[in-house]
């Protein structure tokens, strides 16, 4: 008998694969692979994609990491030195051993790789449009930067002899002149025009409207030069409560006749409303709360009503409305009871129960920074010039940025303010509703993602709110304790090598990094790995929903959803 011949006795042999059995039908919970938001990114006022940055750093790709930072932050050098790094405070690694050195890495990356961001995006519609930024402070530069990245032609008008950003105190703070200068230079280098020593006439409305389609008035300019500019048409009827009080005190005539909408913190708004009443206006106070929430000021409320101030509870203004090129009042959400502030941040789809317009001749905003009301920048559209003022304007503090006690917070806040202004302005020029800005909110702490905005389909960032990866969502079995690396001297910062090691400490919260853990453990071979990207893919025909991938994913990149 030849060895080749079959020696097996006749028997049944199964040759059909079992794969046609759709065992996915057994499932009652569905694992979903979707990137989730890292707490550091949510906390970053600029919404930087920190896990992505860390991933690049951990491979020594510092230049690429710099580019990734600059997608959201025009000033990595400044931030690397003075940012108050809220990211590190919430870093999940902090619960495990010590937070990742996010800020020190930002600085290192900047030192190792400064050269501008290339690739100015030419957007079809507005690319030919010209925008002026009055005032070259941090917010002005930030706004200019993002507008330029959106394809606009941007000119900064600076009445002074140099950009006022250089007035920031560099003595006695960590803000080193060298990094300030190089950050500013790399912002201007992307192709932003700069005009210094502009005459007052140059920023007159009538002048601007000849050359520009839109203007952003930086916070530093709002209370000074912009006054000039606003001498233009009679469209400006939005006031700061402080300013109103001051002008009434000084006996300046104010055009506050007819209905005047007052909003802001309830106490301040009431006070201002009384003053308005006293000079003959008809104040309407818009309060996002309900009398129950305001028990502590019940007497004041009664008093105000008695004196003819009308009170509208449960009204949360979100934008100035405009008719025929004039401010016509405030657009408001009807806020549901409770949790108003949150509803406000989340935007219109949340707990509001509808909206209405409060018509008014003038609008007064009382201490908006205290209320957290994220007021839409006033948009005045007369003769086609779009004017965007800083968010939460007019803020008395804005002007004194450099003198503020917490320089770090103020500077970073202005960076994000500039970003928001740029996005608002673009929406406005493209005649899109302002609410769209909420779709690029990075979590719920107020940061916006420019990258998501630019991509125009923000799914990368648009994660369900509250879907931030918490320490409990991670699987600590996959991480080893490793203490934070301390630079040998704080001035020099981390070395390259230390930078790589520091970045490797990042857990990559919520960001699938193709570690293949889920793939290895799936008992039903329902997860495959895309050969090119290493990205896992779930086969729902066979996934029985055991939830092992969800439990084991080291970084919480898989969620379970009831079928």
């Amino acid at each position: 008998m030849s060895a080749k011949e079959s020696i097996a006795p006749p028997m049944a042999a199964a040759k059909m694969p079992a794969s046609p059995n759709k065992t996915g039908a057994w499932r009652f919970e569905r694992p979903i692979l979707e990137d989730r938001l890292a707490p550091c990114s949510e906390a970053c006022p600029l919404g930087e994609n920190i896990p992505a940055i860390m991933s690049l750093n951990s491979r020594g790709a510092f230049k690429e990491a710099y580019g990734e930072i600059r997608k959201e932050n025009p000033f990595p050098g400044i931030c690397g030195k003075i940012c108050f790094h809220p990211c590190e405070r919430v870093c999940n690694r902090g619960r495990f051993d010590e937070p990742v050195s996010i800020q020190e890495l930002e600085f290192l990356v900047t030192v190792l790789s400064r050269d501008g961001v290339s690739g100015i995006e030419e957007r079809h519609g507005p690319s030919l449009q010209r925008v002026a930024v009055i005032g070259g402070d941090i917010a002005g530069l930030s706004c200019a930067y993002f507008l330029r990245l959106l394809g606009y032609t941007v000119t900064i008008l600076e009445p002074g002899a140099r950009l006022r950003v250089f007035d920031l105190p560099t003595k006695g703070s960590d803000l080193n002149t060298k990094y300030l200068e190089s950050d500013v230079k790399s912002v201007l280098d992307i192709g932003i025009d700069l005009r210094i020593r502009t005459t007052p006439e140059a920023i007159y409305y009538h002048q601007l409207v000849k050359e520009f389609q839109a203007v952003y008035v930086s916070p530093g300019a709002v209370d000074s030069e912009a006054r000039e500019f606003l001498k233009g048409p009679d469209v400006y009827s939005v006031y700061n409560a402080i300013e109103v009080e001051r002008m009434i005190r000084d006996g300046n005539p104010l055009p506050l006749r007819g209905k005047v909408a007052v909003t802001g913190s309830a106490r301040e708004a009431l006070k201002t409303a009384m003053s308005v009443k006293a000079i003959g206006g008809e104040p309407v106070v818009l309060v996002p709360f309900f009398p129950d929430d305001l028990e502590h000021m019940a007497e004041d409320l009664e008093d105000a009503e008695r004196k003819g101030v009308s009170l509208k509870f449960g009204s949360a203004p979100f934008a100035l409305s405009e008719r025929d090129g004039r401010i016509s009042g405030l657009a408001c959400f009807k806020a549901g009871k409770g949790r108003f502030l949150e509803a406000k941040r989340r935007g219109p789809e949340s707990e509001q129960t509808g909206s209405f317009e409060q018509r008014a001749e003038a609008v007064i905003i009382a201490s908006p920074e205290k209320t957290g009301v994220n007021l839409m920048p006033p948009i005045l559209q007369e003769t086609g010039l779009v004017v965007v003022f800083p968010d939460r304007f007019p803020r008395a503090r804005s002007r004194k940025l450099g003198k503020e006690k917490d320089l770090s917070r103020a500077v970073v806040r202005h960076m994000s303010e500039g970003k928001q202004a740029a996005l608002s302005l673009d929406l406005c020029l493209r005649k899109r509703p302002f609410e769209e800005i909420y779709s690029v909110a990075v979590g719920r702490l107020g940061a916006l993602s420019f990258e998501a905005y630019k991509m125009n389909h923000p799914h990368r960032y648009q994660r369900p709110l509250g879907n931030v990866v918490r320490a409990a969502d991670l699987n600590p079995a996959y991480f080893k304790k490793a203490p934070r690396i301390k630079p040998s001297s704080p001035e020099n910062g981390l070395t390259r090598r230390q930078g790589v090691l520091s970045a490797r400490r990042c857990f990559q919260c919520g960001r699938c990094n193709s570690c293949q853990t889920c793939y290895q453990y799936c008992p039903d071979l329902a997860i495959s790995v895309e050969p090119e990207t290493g990205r896992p893919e779930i086969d729902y025909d066979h996934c029985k929903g055991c939830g092992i991938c969800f439990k084991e994913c080291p970084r919480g990149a898989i969620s379970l959803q009831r079928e």
Partner: protein
Amino acid sequence: MAKVRVKEELVYPGSFACPGCGLMMAFRHVLRVLGRNTAVVTTAGCGSVVAGSYPQTISKVPFFHCSFGTAASTAAGLKAGYDMMGKRSINVLAWAGDGGTFDIGLQSLSGAAERNEDIIYVCYDNEAYMNTGVQRSSGTPMGAWTTTTPRESLEDRPKKKMAAIMAAHEIPYIATASVSYPEDLDRKIRKAKGIKGFRFIHIIVPCPTGWLYPASETVRLGREAVLSRIFPLFEIMAGKKYRLSPMGAKTPVREYLVSQGRFKGLSEKDISLIQEKVDEYWSELEELAARSRESHS
């Protein structure tokens, strides 16, 4: 976890294994490492049932169902058959549960090991006769509930030390492994593949259905078993040379026990008794490993 390169999978999806089945995980890894040039022999048990019922199969390599308790002898016969056909390079894998290994398969296993048959014997250990409805086996750990060791009279004998029995046969290679450490498991299978003679691999495969825990916990339990050392990982070369493969600092066994329904109702005294047993076995192993290091250095 470091990358394990993606190799060809030799198992089809669509098995009728319970969600979260540990043995499926083990089977998949073992086959993937052994590769296409493999034939499997299995005895009755979950391992044979999840393999598919005629005319379906989950295996891309030949898969032979033999009678209960005869995996080792059948595999040895198959290997001999292949040798006669000149197909000497085929890996023959005997794939059997704890019941089919520790209890009823023991004599055929011992015979094949003693003859040093050139096969790889993998015992996937779910610590009871699962397929017939969770009856105790001599692989069931002390304190565990099964249908034949109900709450009123829980298992009171220690788990049989299979590795020691196999070591007594002085076979070339013995290893224990866990599905929760696929890299280690893969390495041990790869190593076994490169050795001639009888190779015995003992893999702990948590079973949500029989151990009474949520399906998503399989990997965690397979990890806790190893970390607590209730299922210690080690290798024995030539029946003498012990090498431990600890996967991290030793943890108390309590954490492992309390997360499983089968250990529900154990008293603190029971738990400390189990802990004692675990400690005792682990220090025995440590000693054996230390002695092996000395005599080989």
